[in-house]
């Protein structure tokens, strides 16, 4: 083997595809992450569709649950998974390592966006497939759903990166899981907002999860058009999250 120099970067598309494929592979190989992104949403949907645990605000149980579980899936990938993975990549110097590789920084972020999109597409396919099998009848426009999922993803990703780039990896792990759990209960995922005291409802509806679940439900369960209020809340979170991450994110 010779080490005689032959330097050169791979082409940009090749680097981008390689990085995205690598991140997807690592995520799918990680058991805890799979539990969070695939198993929990599916189990919740199957279980709560079968058992009348909560009042579902006048909807069929499955019609009420599927939009909430989609919101949960988006949160699990774009926030919890992304924050934990990025936190540990920072801690073990993977981000620093890539910073001295030929991969441009924007391409790393683009690869993460691709990774999140691919995993979300798989999750949503899984949840919708199971929902349809359980008798789910979606209403509304798929375009509105895609718009909501995309800006919801941006809102969660900004906050996830902010957390990963500022806290220690262990703190990110704990905090990201705690937030996931809290918003699973309080974010309108499986329990309607009507069940909570009126005083705290505006707060719950203004969380990213609350806004996304509410917005998806108004489209998919009520057949409404694009819900502007939910969109505005999510865009606000996305702007704040990314601005703060850009300002405070530490690469090592």
């Amino acid at each position: 083997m010779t080490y005689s120099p032959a330097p050169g970067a791979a082409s940009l598309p090749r680097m981008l595809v390689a990085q995205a494929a690598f991140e997807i592979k690592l995520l799918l190989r990680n058991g805890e992450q799979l539990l969070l992104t695939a198993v929990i949403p599916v189990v919740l949907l199957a279980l709560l569709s079968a058992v009348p645990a909560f009042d579902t605000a006048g909807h069929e149980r499955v019609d009420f649950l599927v939009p909430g579980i989609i919101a949960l899936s988006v949160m699990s990938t774009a926030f919890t998974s992304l924050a934990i993975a990025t936190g540990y990549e920072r801690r073990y110097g993977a981000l620093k390592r890539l910073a001295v590789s030929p991969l441009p920084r924007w391409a790393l972020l683009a690869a993460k966006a691709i990774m999140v999109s691919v995993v979300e597409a798989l999750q949503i396919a899984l949840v919708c497939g199971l929902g349809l099998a359980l008798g789910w009848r979606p209403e509304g426009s798929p375009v509105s759903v895609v718009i909501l999922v995309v800006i919801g993803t941006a809102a969660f990703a900004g906050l996830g990166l902010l957390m990963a780039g500022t806290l220690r990896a262990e703190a990110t792990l704990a905090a990201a899981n705690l937030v996931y759990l809290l918003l699973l209960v309080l974010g309108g995922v499986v329990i309607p907002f009507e069940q909570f005291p009126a005083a705290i409802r505006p707060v719950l509806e203004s969380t990213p999860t609350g806004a996304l679940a509410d917005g998806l439900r108004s489209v998919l369960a009520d057949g409404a058009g694009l819900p502007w209020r939910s969109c505005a809340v999510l865009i606000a979170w996305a702007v704040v999250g990314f601005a703060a991450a850009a300002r405070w994110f530490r690469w090592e």
Partner: protein
Amino acid sequence: MNVSPAVDIDGLVKRYGHTTAVDGLSVRFPAGAVTAVLGPNGAGKTTTVEICEGLRRADSGRVRVLGRDPLRDGAVLRPRVGVMLQEGAGFYPGARAIDMLTHLARLHRTPLDADQLIERLGLRQSAGTPLRRLSGGQRQRVALAAALIGRPELVFLDEPTAGLDPHVRRATWDLISELRSDGVTVVLTTHLIDEAEQLADHVVIIDAGRLAVEGSPQELTAGVGDGVITFGGPPRLDLSSLRAALPETAEVREVTPGGYQVTASVDPHLLATLTSWCATHDILAEGLQVGRRSLEDIYLEATGRAR
């Protein structure tokens, strides 16, 4: 060394808060050679190297790597420069060594073969284990492989053999020598003097963020009047009569109890003066040795820790 240097640093300053890590460092690392940057912990070695790698921004001064600005021309430099981070850092914790190296190879146009590199670095047994479960020494070798995979023309190795056992250290030294024969410029930081002595064409000693001395190991140890004589005798000898007998420039010290050292321009006359002084005082001068100053002596003096 009349070709343009691989790294050219001029008046480099870097502060962290109130601490000045690099304090006006000016130095050049020659192309096609192995340069060892020696210095105690906290001397500013890693900071300097990380500025050259484009990971940190200098507060002032000018740095050129392969003639380019490491920050402004990062996109051009990164494919040409291989980097081994300190303490084997820089990996995805869940990835295996082979995944990590195969992935980094994909970011380059004509990379080395990841499998061959694994074999060469003796990582065959651990190639399938997640990196977070490897030992420190194994991670160090993965990090070294990561620096080489893209076939760079210049590599920065930050303490490449720290914490390695003697066999692996030897193997790593062999590899670094191979790099040089194949035309790769190597810059390594270390606080192991024998590593610098074994490997380096050029030694740069920095202390407290400044250049202390530089030169080839031969140049550094062959200074005029830099001979050393050591000998043993009873402890706490009165050395004043010896000092009087020797030339004024000679230094005489009891380095350890009963261990004496004379630093001077050593010639046969001086040696005769010394031995006759010993005869007069009935001292056998056990283990009498005439030698040049070692790189270690130079290092200890340059970094202000000489006794």
